[in-house]
């Protein structure tokens, strides 16, 4: 079935907050697996689009399918396909919680109250932490980690649910440039080697261009969507941002860390 190869299919999506239009008549299809970067100015509806794909927001109009499942009608099944990494700023550091327990959290959430983790769950947690290079921090308190380390742990939490798609909201905010690159490479390799579709929202497209299969430029409406070369054009960026924006693609940022690239 052809439709199975799409990670996301959005048709005529309009989202309103009260009277204010957040997203207007958005339609696009995203093949699986692929790496999609969503950019746009502040308040352009980037996060709203992510939340809509997660089924957290009820749209005014239109439909969203994730792996051919309606995100509202088949909410539970659709969410099981997705690992979500929220903005780190929205996470409380008041809770004294170990790295391993955070990664376990996402898996256990699916089982409902009063469940204890099985050996298999713990194994998946270990695998996820190994993938992001944080397994040595198993017992550490989350709030004692650096911003980049916290981001990796949150990515591990998303990976531990064995998703087919990762959704990340501003994964590079408040982390230094070397850490940005490390996280980007991690995501790039997940898409390449694990066949996971990666969708990320960012206000800084510079480092991401090369890694992306598709770029979406959003400003309440879909300004442009396609391959980086077709989308990153001065006139399109001007239309989205209202001012001239220069995109400088860093050469050689996206590289394969190890292993078979033809997975």
């Amino acid at each position: 079935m052809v439709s199975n190869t799409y990670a996301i299919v959005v048709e005529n999506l309009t989202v309103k907050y009260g009277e204010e239009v957040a997203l207007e008549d958005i339609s696009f299809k995203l093949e699986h697996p692929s790496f999609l970067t969503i950019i746009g100015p502040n308040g352009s509806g980037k996060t709203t689009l992510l939340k809509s794909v997660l089924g957290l927001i009820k749209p005014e109009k239109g439909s969203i399918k994730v792996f051919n499942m309606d995100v509202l009608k088949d909410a539970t099944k659709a969410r099981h396909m997705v690992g979500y990494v929220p903005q780190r700023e929205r996470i409380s550091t008041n809770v004294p919680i170990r790295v391993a327990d955070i990664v376990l959290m996402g898996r256990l959430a699916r089982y409902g109250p009063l469940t204890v983790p099985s050996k298999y769950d713990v194994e998946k947690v270990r695998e996820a932490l190994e993938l992001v290079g944080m397994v040595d921090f198993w017992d550490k308190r989350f709030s004692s980690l650096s911003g980049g380390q916290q981001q990796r742990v949150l990515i591990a939490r998303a990976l531990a649910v064995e998703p087919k798609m990762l959704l990340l909201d501003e994964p590079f905010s408040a982390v230094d440039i070397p850490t940005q690159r490390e996280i980007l490479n991690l995501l790039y390799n997940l898409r390449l080697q694990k066949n996971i579709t990666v969708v990320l929202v960012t206000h800084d497209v510079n480092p991401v261009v090369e890694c992306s299969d598709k770029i979406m430029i959003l400003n309440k409406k879909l300004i442009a969507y396609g391959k980086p070369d077709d989308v990153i054009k001065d006139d399109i960026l001007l239309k989205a941002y209202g001012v001239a924006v220069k995109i400088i693609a860093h050469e050689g940022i996206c590289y394969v860390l190890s292993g078979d690239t033809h997975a």
Partner: protein
Amino acid sequence: MPNILDILLSPFMIRALIAVVLIAFVASTAGSFTVYRGLTFLVAGVAHAALAGAALAILLDMYGIIPGFPEILGAAVFAIITALIAGYVGRKGESERMEVAIGVSFALTMSIAILLISMIKEYAVRAWGLIMGDILLLTEKDLLLLAITTLIVVFTTLLFYKEFVFVSFDMEGATAYGVRAELYHYIMLLLIALSVVVVLKGVGAILVYAMIVVPAAAANQFSKNTTSVMIWSFFIALFGGLVGLIVAALYVNVAPSAIAGLIVTVFYFIALIFSRR
């Protein structure tokens, strides 16, 4: 001077001892989630709302509008309404917005409380009893209510422990991973409100903050995980309460809840100084 053991074994003291143990359970469960959610102000807000509710109940009883209207019911209704309003404002997980809502309802309910207390002058002492609280004056009925509520709070917290932790840590993420975050958010707030109401009579509207929030806040300074916070806050609250009762047994005129409040705050400051965070 009477034998301290005789005093400690007298019925009012035994009731107070049981109350201290129950309050310690509430402090370790409802208290720790209050601290995780950054909602310590809710405890103060709810306590003062409860005061207004109790004053209204006394007024309704006094003027014969609803004779025998129980204070605790009036207190619970006001406390729950306040918690739900604050919860509605912060239903997406924004604690900062909740703080403002709690502040406003604090001003409103405190004005209502003072207005009502001024209208019930002859009975104002009943309302003042709730502001100051007296753990030595608890009746068997009060104790039973405290016991039942503690049981509900502890049982619910253990039942939804994992969900409460997830929602406290990351409400948006919890929803995305399939947790009914908003529901657990409201359950948590209701538990906090109920805890405040039943602890109120024992320790008073002002010191309820000391007994519910401070032990968990102190434990959270040095604990590595949530279980450790629960255990430590239980013992800090228990220790504070016991010392308070012993001092009150030795020196009759001393309010036990005030001593308990002092002890737990000392714990907090020690924890603050020695925590490595």
